[in-house]
């Protein structure tokens, strides 16, 4: 393994009980400064992987190095190099945001004189200065997640693990967190390992995405490459007159191969990415009125569907037995 990689895993396995293989031999290679999106449904093995990489759970087999340190033999060195915001913001509702940060700075051994400054900086960065002296029990979900992020950054880690950081957040809070994570990677060179079950999150944030299902990585690459790999856009045209379906099918067949469309529409996978204008012109030339026309670009869900045979949007399984 190379220390030039921020995170590396080789055949990482975690078995719970006698036979439940939550993580079943995954390989990872994340470059410094990269945002790596680990995408998969509930129960796929994302959180178990994060627990192993953050030293909180020993692997059953395989090996992993984080920041150049072995996660089993050099746990303390790994922990010194990483920050982590694990699933569900683990906060004490009876402490204030400032008290959380002060405790974290003290436990990480920051000199007393620097603690106040660092706490102030972090509160400012995550927009919690005004709420700093309120008990966390009164914080919104977004505020808790931002505090969670600030706590993970107390000791200026070079690698950040975020386990489903935006689950349950509203769009505004989600966007704010995305901005901060992107800024950390871009401006400060922090490597981010982000698990998510949101396609959009992986698409927007991640430089590269690993798709995990049943403990296996089923696809890996940049979002654009993964989408390009599974195919071209689909156009789905619905005739204004239901009797025109056959004529629609004939015209659309000139632009690509037929595929499954909407119940009243006719769909083809376009042979090239600029085919939509041609389809519109051809239908117009044939005097075929259109009720509705949709261009469906491939999404990461399509990638997931292509790789696993089912849609990520509905692929909710039993929660992972982490920490069992």
């Amino acid at each position, binding site marked *: 393994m190379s220390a030039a990689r921020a995170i590396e895993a080789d055949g990482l396995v975690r078995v719970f009980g006698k036979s439940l293989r939550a993580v079943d031999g995954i390989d990872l290679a994340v470059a410094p400064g990269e945002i790596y999106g680990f995408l998969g449904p509930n129960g796929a093995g994302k959180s178990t992987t994060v627990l192993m990489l*953050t*030293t*909180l*759970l*020993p692997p059953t087999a395989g090996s992993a190095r984080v920041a150049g340190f072995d*996660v*089993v*033999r050099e*746990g*303390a060195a*790994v*922990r*010194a190099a*990483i920050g*982590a915001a*694990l*699933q*569900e913001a*683990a*906060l*004490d509702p*009876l*402490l204030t945001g400032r*008290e959380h940060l002060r*405790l*974290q700075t*003290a*436990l*990480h*051994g920051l000199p007393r004189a620097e603690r106040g400054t660092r706490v102030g900086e972090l509160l400012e960065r995550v927009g919690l200065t005004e709420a700093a002296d309120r*008990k966390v029990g009164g914080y919104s979900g977004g505020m808790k997640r931002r505090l969670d992020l600030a*706590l993970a950054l107390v000791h200026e880690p070079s690698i950040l693990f975020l386990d489903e950081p935006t689950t349950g957040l509203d769009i505004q809070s989600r966007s704010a967190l995305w901005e901060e994570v992107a800024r950390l990677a871009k401006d400060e060179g922090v490597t981010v390992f982000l698990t998510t079950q949101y396609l959009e999150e992986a698409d927007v944030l991640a430089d590269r995405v690993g798709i995990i299902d049943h403990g296996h990585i089923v696809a890996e690459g940049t979002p654009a490459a993964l989408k390009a790999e599974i195919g071209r856009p689909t156009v789905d045209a619905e005739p204004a007159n239901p009797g025109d379906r056959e004529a629609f099918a004939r015209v659309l067949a000139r632009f690509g191969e037929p595929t499954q469309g909407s119940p009243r529409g006719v769909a083809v996978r376009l042979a090239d990415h600029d085919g939509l204008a041609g389809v519109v012109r051809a239908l117009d030339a044939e005097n075929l009125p259109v009720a509705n026309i949709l261009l469906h670009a491939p999404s990461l869900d399509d990638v997931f569907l292509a790789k696993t045979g089912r849609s990520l949007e509905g692929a909710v399984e039993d929660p992972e037995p982490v*920490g069992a």
Partner: protein
Amino acid sequence: MNDFAAHVVHLGRRSVLRTLRQPISVFPSLLFPLILLAVNVAGLDRATLLPGFPTDSYLDFALAFTFMQGTLFAAINAGTDLGRDIETGFLNRLALTPVRGMAMVAGQLAGAVALGLIQAAVFLSVGVIAGARIEAGVAGALVVVALSVLMALGFGAIGAVMALRTGSGETVQGLFPVLFALLFLSSMNLPRNIIDIDWFRQAATYNPVSYLIEAIRSLVIEGWNGQALALGFGMATGIAVLALAVAALSLRTRLVRT
């Protein structure tokens, strides 16, 4: 101060803050023992007429029991708080810092110790105001406080063990009746030598709680009784050492960081 001690202090501060910010936990632990004391004193005062009863004031006799009952509340609070930390993932957050496992538990017990201290001060004050007389004087009262704190530490560690074993604050609370039963199978209401029922006297004799209560009671009604104090402090220390050792073992199972 070394890192371990510093971590205990920081986590202890958090634990004390948590305890003081939960009046719903603090008040019952102060109020219920005093209510039970009032009920017992009102209902059992004639027990002082029994031959061999060591004092003519049932208040003096029963005051010691409040400290023991308060200790159980402290234990349950410590266990519940640690159980919640496990449930919410806060323990994992701490596990990602350089803090050693035992510092986490020791810090958590600071809240129990603080509560034990508050309880001892309140129970002593209320007892004296109600007419109790501490035969061992002010120094004896301080020894009562010291023993209460040691008891809170030991039973708090038992609460921590329960939390580490079950990983649930609610389960720890559910175990309260079991611990409470231990109290009633002791010499809390009568001196062991005048308990008439054989099995009950035997149970009270084997129950370490009896010796904790009797040590405090001796300071209130007798003055300085070296044997009672040695047994009381010995039991309290033994319970604390044993419970902390089991807590350390339980922590190794619960906290599997590499």
